[in-house]
C-alpha cells in the first residue's frame, strides 16, 4: 500500500508544483494578493506531498518490502538499520527523491522564514522554485519511478554496494544535496529579481543567508566525501579530481564567489548584475553536476544507472533551465540601475579579485572535467585529464587569492590605503618568509612547492590574527580586548574563522603531501616495519564476522622509541549481499598526523602484503573544513543577517545611506 500512496503523493506534488509555477505570476500581473499568497500554500503543500512520498519510500526500505523493485535491488534484511535508511538515497531513483525533498524543504523554508519579504517578491521566488520542482518531478515520474512493483516479490534483496555501507557515506549525500539544492534558492532569488528588474542591497541581504547555508552544507558534504575516500578506499588519497568530485567542487567555488560578491551588493550597491549572474551560474553548476552524475556519461562509484533516456531528459532539462535563465539575464540585466563606484584599491576591488580568481578556477575545473567528454563526442579517442592539470590550476590561481585574502579585509570600502594594510601585515610577511626559508634550508632547496605552500598558510594565519588584533586594538589597548572583541559582529568572527580554516587546509595539504611516509611490505607475524619514526609490529591475523560480512582482521602494535602508541586493526571484508570485498583501513589520528594501515592479499606461508603510512597533519583538511563551516554558522547566527530580519525603517537604512554617498 505504501508505495502506491507514495506514487500518488508524487503525482499530487507535480500538480501542486504546476499550480505554484503559474498562478503567482498571474496574481502579480493582476495585482491580486490572494493569488500571490497562493504561492505560500503551494510551497507548504508541495513539501508535505513530497515528504509523504519520501516517507513511503523510506518505509518500504525500513520494512524491507521486496515487492518494490528499488528495495529489492538495493536493500537486504541483514543490513544494519542505518544502511537500510541510507540505502534510500544510495541509488539513482532514491537520490532524486532526496533531491526533490530538499528542493521542497527549501521552498517551504523560504515561505515560512521569508514572511518579511514583500509578498509579490516571495511569490516570484516560490514560483521559480515550483518550476524547478516541476522539472525534477517529471524526471522522476517519467524516467525514474522509485515505486515500481516487482511481481513475484523475491524473498531477499540484492543489498547495497558495501562501499556505500559506511557512516561517512550515509550522511554525505544528504549534506551535499542540501548544498546543491540550497543554491536553487539563490537561483530563484536571482531569477525573481531579474523578472522584477530590480536588485537592491536589501535583495543581497535576503539572498546571503541562503547562499551561506548552501555553502556550509556543500563544504560539509565535500569534506565528508573526501574523508570517506580517505579511509574507505584504502589508498590514503583524499581527492582524485574525479569528475564526480569536480561536479561538487565547481558549485562550491561559485557559491564562495557569490557569498563574497553579495557582500558588495549589500554594503555598496555595486556588482549587481555580476552577482545575479553568479547566482545563476552556481546553481547551473549544481544541475550540471547532477547531469554528470545521474546521466551515466560518467562511470564511477556514484553512477548508479546507465539509461540513455534519463541522460537525455536531464540534458534537455539542463538546457532549458540554464538557457532560459541566461537568456532572461541577457535581456534584463542591462536594465539594472548601476550602483556605487569604488577605487582601484578598496575592499570592493579585493572582493572583485576574489571573484575573478574563484570563477577562473571554476572555469579551469569545468574545462578539465568536460574535455574528455567533448573529445569523446568528436570521436577523438578516450582521454583523461589527470591530477597534474588541476593541481597546476589550483596552485597558480589560488596562491594569489590567498595573498590577496590576507590584505583584503584591511582595506576600507570605496577607497582603501594599501600602505596602511601593508604596514599592519608586515609581520605576517615576515612569518611567511621565515616558514619558507626554514623549509628550504631544512630540505636544502628540494621542496620548493612545500615552501610556497607553507609560506601561504603561515601568511594567511598570521594575517587573520593581525586583522583581528587590529580590530580589537590588541596591541594598542590590550586591557580593552574583551570589550572590543564582544563588540565585533559575529559575521566578522565568522569570516576570520573561515579564512583561518582555509589556511589550515592549505597547511594540511602541503605538509601531508611533502612528508607522508609510506611502506609496502610483505610481513610475517612478529615482523616490525619502520615507517618514519614509528614501528609497526605485525601480530598476525584473525577471522571476524560482522552482521553482513566476514573479514580477515590484522593486528598491529605501533610504538615510537619503544613507547606503545596505538593498536591498529585493518580488515579485508567480504560482504555477502552483494558478494564483494572491501578494504577497511585502520586509522589512528595523532596530534602530529595519522597512522594508517591497510592489509592486502595473503602471500602464502603466513605472509601478508601490507601497506603502512604515516600521514602528517592530514587531519588539517577536515579540521579546516570544519572551521570553515563553523565560521559560516557563526556568520549566519549574526543578528543582522538572520533571514528576513531587517524590517521597516531598519532595512531602509543601508540603501538611503548609499544614495547619499
Amino acid at each position: 500500500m505504501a508505495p502506491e500512496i507514495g506514487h500518488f503523493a508524487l503525482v499530487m506534488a507535480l500538480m501542486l508544483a504546476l499550480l505554484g509555477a503559474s498562478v503567482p505570476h498571474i496574481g502579480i500581473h493582476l495585482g491580486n494578493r490572494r493569488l500571490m499568497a497562493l504561492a505560500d500554500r503551494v510551497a507548504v503543500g508541495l513539501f508535505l506531498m513530497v515528504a509523504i512520498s519520501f516517507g513511503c519510500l523510506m518505509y518500504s526500505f525500513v520494512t524491507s518490502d521486496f515487492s518494490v523493485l528499488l528495495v529489492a535491488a538495493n536493500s537486504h534484511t541483514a543490513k544494519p538499520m542505518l544502511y537500510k535508511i541510507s540505502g534510500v538515497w544510495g541509488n539513482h531513483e532514491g537520490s532524486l527523491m532526496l533531491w526533490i525533498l530538499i528542493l521542497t524543504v527549501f521552498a517551504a523554508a523560504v515561505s515560512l522564514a521569508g514572511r518579511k519579504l514583500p509578498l509579490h517578491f516571495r511569490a516570484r521566488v516560490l514560483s521559480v522554485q515550483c518550476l524547478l520542482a516541476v522539472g525534477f518531478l517529471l524526471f522522476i515520474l517519467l524516467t525514474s519511478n522509485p515505486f515500481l512493483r516487482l511481481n513475484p516479490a523475491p524473498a531477499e534483496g540484492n543489498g547495497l554496494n558495501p562501499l556505500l555501507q559506511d557512516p561517512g557515506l550515509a550522511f554525505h549525500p544528504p549534506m551535499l544535496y542540501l548544498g546543491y539544492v540550497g543554491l536553487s534558492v539563490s537561483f530563484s532569488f536571482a531569477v525573481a529579481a531579474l523578472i522584477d528588474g530590480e536588485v537592491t542591497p536589501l535583495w543581497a541581504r535576503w539572498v546571503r543567508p541562503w547562499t551561506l547555508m548552501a555553502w556550509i552544507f556543500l563544504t560539509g558534504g565535500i569534506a565528508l566525501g573526501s574523508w570517506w575516500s580517505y579511509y574507505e578506499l584504502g589508498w590514503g588519497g583524499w581527492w582524485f579530481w574525479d569528475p564526480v568530485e569536480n561536479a561538487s567542487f565547481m558549485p562550491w567555488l561559485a557559491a564562495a564567489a557569490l557569498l563574497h560578491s553579495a557582500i558588495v551588493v549589500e554594503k555598496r550597491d555595486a556588482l549587481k548584475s555580476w552577482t545575479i549572474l553568479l547566482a545563476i551560474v552556481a546553481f547551473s553548476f549544481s544541475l550540471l553536476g547532477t547531469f554528470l552524475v545521474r546521466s551515466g556519461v560518467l562511470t564511477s562509484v556514484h553512477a548508479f544507472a546507465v539509461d540513455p533516456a534519463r541522460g537525455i531528459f536531464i540534458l534537455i532539462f539542463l538546457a532549458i533551465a540554464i538557457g532560459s535563465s541566461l537568456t532572461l539575464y541577457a535581456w534584463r540585466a542591462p536594465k539594472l540601475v548601476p550602483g556605487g563606484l569604488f577605487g582601484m584599491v578598496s575592499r570592493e576591488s579585493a572582493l572583485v579579485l576574489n571573484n575573478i580568481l574563484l570563477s577562473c578556477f571554476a572555469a579551469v575545473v569545468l574545462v578539465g572535467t568536460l574535455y574528455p567528454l567533448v573529445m569523446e563526442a568528436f570521436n577523438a579517442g578516450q582521454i583523461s585529464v589527470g591530477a597534474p592539470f588541476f593541481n597546476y590550476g589550483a596552485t597558480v590561481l589560488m596562491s594569489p587569492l590567498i595573498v590577496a585574502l590576507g590584505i583584503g579585509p584591511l582595506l576600507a570600502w570605496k577607497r582603501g590605503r594599501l600602505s596602511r594594510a601593508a604596514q599592519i601585515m608586515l609581520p605576517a610577511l615576515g612569518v611567511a618568509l621565515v616558514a619558507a626559508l626554514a623549509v628550504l634550508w631544512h630540505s636544502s632547496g628540494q621542496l620548493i612547492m612545500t615552501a610556497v605552500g607553507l609560506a601561504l598558510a603561515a601568511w594567511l594565519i598570521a594575517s587573520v590574527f593581525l586583522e583581528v588584533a587590529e580590530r580589537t586594538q590588541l596591541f594598542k589597548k590590550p586591557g580593552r580586548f574583551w570589550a572590543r572583541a564582544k563588540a565585533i559582529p559575529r559575521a566578522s568572527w565568522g569570516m576570520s574563522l573561515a579564512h583561518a580554516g582555509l589556511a589550515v587546509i592549505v597547511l594540511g595539504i602541503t605538509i601531508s603531501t611533502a612528508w607522508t611516509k609510506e611502506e609496502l611490505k610483505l610481513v610475517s607475524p612478529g615482523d616490525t616495519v619502520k615507517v618514519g619514526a614509528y614501528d609497526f609490529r605485525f601480530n598476525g591475523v584473525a577471522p571476524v564476522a560482522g552482521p553482513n560480512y566476514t573479514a580477515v582482521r590484522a593486528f598491529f602494535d605501533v610504538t615510537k622509541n619503544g613507547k606503545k602508541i596505538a593498536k591498529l586493526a585493518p580488515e579485508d571484508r567480504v560482504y555477502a549481499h552483494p558478494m564483494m570485498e572491501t578494504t577497511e583501513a585502520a586509522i589512528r589520528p595523532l596530534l602530529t598526523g595519522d597512522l594508517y594501515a591497510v592489509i592486502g592479499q595473503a602471500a602464502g606461508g603466513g605472509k601478508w602484503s601490507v601497506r603502512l603510512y604515516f600521514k602528517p597533519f592530514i587531519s588539517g583538511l577536515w579540521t579546516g573544513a570544519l572551521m570553515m563551516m563553523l565560521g559560516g554558522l557563526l556568520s549566519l547566527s549574526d543578528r543582522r543577517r538572520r533571514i528576513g530580519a531587517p524590517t521597516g525603517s531598519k532595512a531602509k537604512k543601508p540603501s538611503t545611506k548609499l544614495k547619499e554617498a
Partner: protein
Amino acid sequence: MAAPKKSKGLKTRKRQRLVIVSAALIAIVGAIILITFALGGDSLNLYLQPSAVMEKQVPAGKRFRLGGLVATGSFHRDTDGLTYLFTVTDCAVDIPVKFKGLLPDLFREGQGVVTEGRLNKQGVFVAETVLAKHDENYTPPGTAPKNAEACSHPEALSALKKGGR
C-alpha cells in the same frame, strides 16, 4: 544628493567597468594559456585498449591508460610477493602488465580493469595504479572488447556477456 567628488582613487563608472572587465579578461586568457600549457604535458592521458597500443606504436615511457580484460590464467605473483604480473587483453592483442602494490578488492581474472602507467623498453606495461570495476553491474568504460566474438579467452567472454555493455 551631492555629485561624487572626483579624486585620484575614484574613477568614472565606465572607467571602473573597463578596469574590471580587462582584469577578468586577463585572468581568463591567463587561465586558457595555463590550460593549453598544462594539457601539453603529462596530465592528459590517452585511454587505449591493447590493439590501439599496438596500432599507434606507443613509445616506451609515454604515460597512458590501458584498459581491457585481465586474461584468464595470466595472473601470478613475482618472487618478492608484492609485485603482480598479469596480461591485459582485448581479445586481439595481449599486453603484459607489471604492478607493485596492493591490488584493488575487485580485481579478478576475466574482468575489466583500467591501469595507468608506461610501457618499458621490454614492452611490459609498468602500472602505477590499477582500478578495477566498482561493482558487478558494470564494466569500466571501454574495457569491453569490440571484437568480443573473436575472443580467444572464452571465460573472459562469458564474464563479459554477463557484465553487459
